[in-house]
């Protein structure tokens, strides 16, 4: 089966070419089916490779060289595929979720002029993403990395007629390039240190390196900078919420399930280097935790349904990095895996809602959609429970594993992690109740128009909902009677790390402690959900319009819900205010300013430099002579 592995990335590429060249000439149905099938076949192929692979314990990675690519004396780089535990798991997610999103898009984008263009880009994206995860060396990773960035740029700016969307696209692109600078330098340094780009070679040689080696630390920091850009971590995360300008399936596929997790993939792929650099790991841990909490607080206050999900994505990515920083690579991947399902589900669900609402994204204009959209409602609820981390849905297991690792590291980290989880549960249920319960708050026309989405859209929702329920069972912890399947499966991948640390990477807590941790976090989450329910369902609380800030405080007071009042004034309000503060001051004023400032600096210097070009030959010659004199003087005096 492996000999057909090259087909996996090749087919989406063919699909891309087909849509680009013939997309206009054939009907939309044909475009959508071709594009979807060219993702479905790779999925089937991946499964066909995957099944024999899991049946062997600690299977060796399969490397399939395709073409010789670069050959300079001692350096040979091939186009070659590496099939191992990590790449196969990634491929399953990419092709599986990718296929569902293709199907979904067929319904969602049905009335769009750029239908064939959209599918072309989607296919191209799948191609590059597969290249990214399937390559056996850093160069292929880099090509995929740049390629997905490009597709993301194209898809964010898909509705290019809107200038704001173009700006969002540019912002994403530029921020990603900052990260890419780090990645590229990291790759160059790797080459200098190891004289190779092959993962296997690097892993082989890295085992002998002492922990804390300065070059390795530098490399890992540079790689991490690359990951920060791609995976939207502090301080380069602001592009991701803006990236929601793209069509919703894009948000689901690229900005939730796959591309943004490339940073996580990169670090797991090079886990041995990161294990050798404890300093970098500390940084990653703090950056991840900070991002998780920071984004979660901002999420509390957002009223745009996609913005909430976007900040939630940033926050969940923060969790993954938190886990990576703790050295819990499997936990990070596990969360990536489950998150891909439930976040894609939530995005697609929100797309279904937006579709039904004729493009309305403001939560304050929704409400009571439960009746009109039964399937969307049910699946969305599953997604919400999954992300909130209630057992036995997927999010519970993965989040629990991260939290357990955190506790093993330091209890304070656990508390912070739980805090983030609580906020997640709150804003997600807030979103859920605001959208699906209460009375409808939109216009009459919208209400009249409300309808359940077509089958092409609900089918992926159902599949993803099922996955969100069961995905967690790939790694049920021992304490709950599971067998840590994923941990065992990943053992060969983390062999180097294990060897270096000479102990098992995942946490060892006593069963009692684990029960207590699990129980307390679940209870806390339940409490928060209950609070959200009272606040947004029973009391029908609706966030204030932007035009009347803080007036809701007075309204609340008049309603005399003492608990609410108490909570609002002591806990909720400061948090909400703080969230607003973070958003308005730190993000808008500070981070955005820095990014924009760099751009403005370039523009300004460009303007200035332009005027050196006076058009006057006399001046040019004068400048030349000065230049020549300076050079000659330097030559004489620099000796």
């Amino acid at each position: 089966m492996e000999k057909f592995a090259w087909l996996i990335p090749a087919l989406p590429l063919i699909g891309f070419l087909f849509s680009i060249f013939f997309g206009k000439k054939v009907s939309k149905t044909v475009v959508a089916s071709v594009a979807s099938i060219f993702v479905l076949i790779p999925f089937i192929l991946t499964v066909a490779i995957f099944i024999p692979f899991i049946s062997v314990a600690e299977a060796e990675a399969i490397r399939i060289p395709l073409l010789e690519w670069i050959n300079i004396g001692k350096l040979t780089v091939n186009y070659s595929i590496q099939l191992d535990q990590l790449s196969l798991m990634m491929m399953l997610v990419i092709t599986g979720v990718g296929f569902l999103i293709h199907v979904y898009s067929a319904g969602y984008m049905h009335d769009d002029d750029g239908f064939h263009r959209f599918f072309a880009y989607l296919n191209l994206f799948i191609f590059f993403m597969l290249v990214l995860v399937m390559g056996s060396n850093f160069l292929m990773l880099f090509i995929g990395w740049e390629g997905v960035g490009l597709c993301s740029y194209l898809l964010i700016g898909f509705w290019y007629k809107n200038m704001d969307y173009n700006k969002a696209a540019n912002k994403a692109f530029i921020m990603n390039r900052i990260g890419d600078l780090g990645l590229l330098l990291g790759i160059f340094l790797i080459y200098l240190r190891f004289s190779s780009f092959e993962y296997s070679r690097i892993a082989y040689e890295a085992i002998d390196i002492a922990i804390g080696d300065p070059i390795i630390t530098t490399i890992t920091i540079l790689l991490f900078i690359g990951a920060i850009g791609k995976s939207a971590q502090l301080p380069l995360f602001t592009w991701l919420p803006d990236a929601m300008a793209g069509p919703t399936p894009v948000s689901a596929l690229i900005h939730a399930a796959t591309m943004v997790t490339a940073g996580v993939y990169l670090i797991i792929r090079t886990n041995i280097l990161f294990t050798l650099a404890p300093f970098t790991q500390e940084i990653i841990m703090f950056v991840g935790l900070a991002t998780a909490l920071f984004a979660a607080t901002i999420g509390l206050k957002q009223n745009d349904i996609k913005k909430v999900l976007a900040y939630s994505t940033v926050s969940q990515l923060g969790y993954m990095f938190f886990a990576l920083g703790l050295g819990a690579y499997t936990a990070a991947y596990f969360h990536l895996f489950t998150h891909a399902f439930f976040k894609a589900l939530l995005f697609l669900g929100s797309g279904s809602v937006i579709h039904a609402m004729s493009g309305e994204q403001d939560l304050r204009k929704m409400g009571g959609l439960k009746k009109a959209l039964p399937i969307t409602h049910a699946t969305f609820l599953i997604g919400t429970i999954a992300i909130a981390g209630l057992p036995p849905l997927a999010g519970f297991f993965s989040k629990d594993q991260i939290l357990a690792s955190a506790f093993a590291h330091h209890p304070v980290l656990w508390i912070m992690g739980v805090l983030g989880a609580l906020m997640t549960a709150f804003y997600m249920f807030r979103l859920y109740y605001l959208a699906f319960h209460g009375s409808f708050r939109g216009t009459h026309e919208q209400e009249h128009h409300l309808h359940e989405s077509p089958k092409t859209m609900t089918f992926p929702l159902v599949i993803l909902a099922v996955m969100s329920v069961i995905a967690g069972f790939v790694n049920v912890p021992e304490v709950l009677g599971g067998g840590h399947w994923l941990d065992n499966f990943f053992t060969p991948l983390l062999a180097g790390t294990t060897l270096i640390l000479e102990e098992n990477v995942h946490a060892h807590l006593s069963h009692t402690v684990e029960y207590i941790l699990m129980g307390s976090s679940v209870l806390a989450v339940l409490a928060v959900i209950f609070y959200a329910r009272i606040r947004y369902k029973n009391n029908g609380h609706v966030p204030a319009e932007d035009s009347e800030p803080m007036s809701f405080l007075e309204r609340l007071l008049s309603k005399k819900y003492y608990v609410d009042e108490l909570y609002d004034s002591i806990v909720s309000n400061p948090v909400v205010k703080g969230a607003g503060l973070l958003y308005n001051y730190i993000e808008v004023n500070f981070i955005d300013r820095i990014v924009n400032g760099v751009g403005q600096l370039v523009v300004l210097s460009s303007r200035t430099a332009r005027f050196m070009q006076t058009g006057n030959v006399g001046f040019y010659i004068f400048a030349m002579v000065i230049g020549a004199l300076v050079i000659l003087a330097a030559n004489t005096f620099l000796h």
Partner: protein
Amino acid sequence: MENITQFTGALTINHYLFLSSVLFSIGVMGVLLRRNFIIIFMCVELMLNAVNILLAAFSRYNGNQSGQVFVFFIMVVAAAEVAVGLAILVMIFRNIRTTDINALKNLKW
């Protein structure tokens, strides 16, 4: 005649170097300070001829004839350059009726 050779023999290569550097610099200054195309052009020629003197001197000093042959090449190239330069001048003069190099500055920024 003998004495003349002796006299020139007393000049070291540094004298020639100095002479041609000065001539070259005069040429550079001329290009820098003048605005008339033709005069600038003559200054460029002066630069080339300064080089020619130096080449001939080096050639003699090193006892290597190739320097002198190079002078011939430079002269021919300079003549070609003159032809092209003057053609450009005529072309421009016909269009804008001036030989001031700074008159043409539409291409800028």
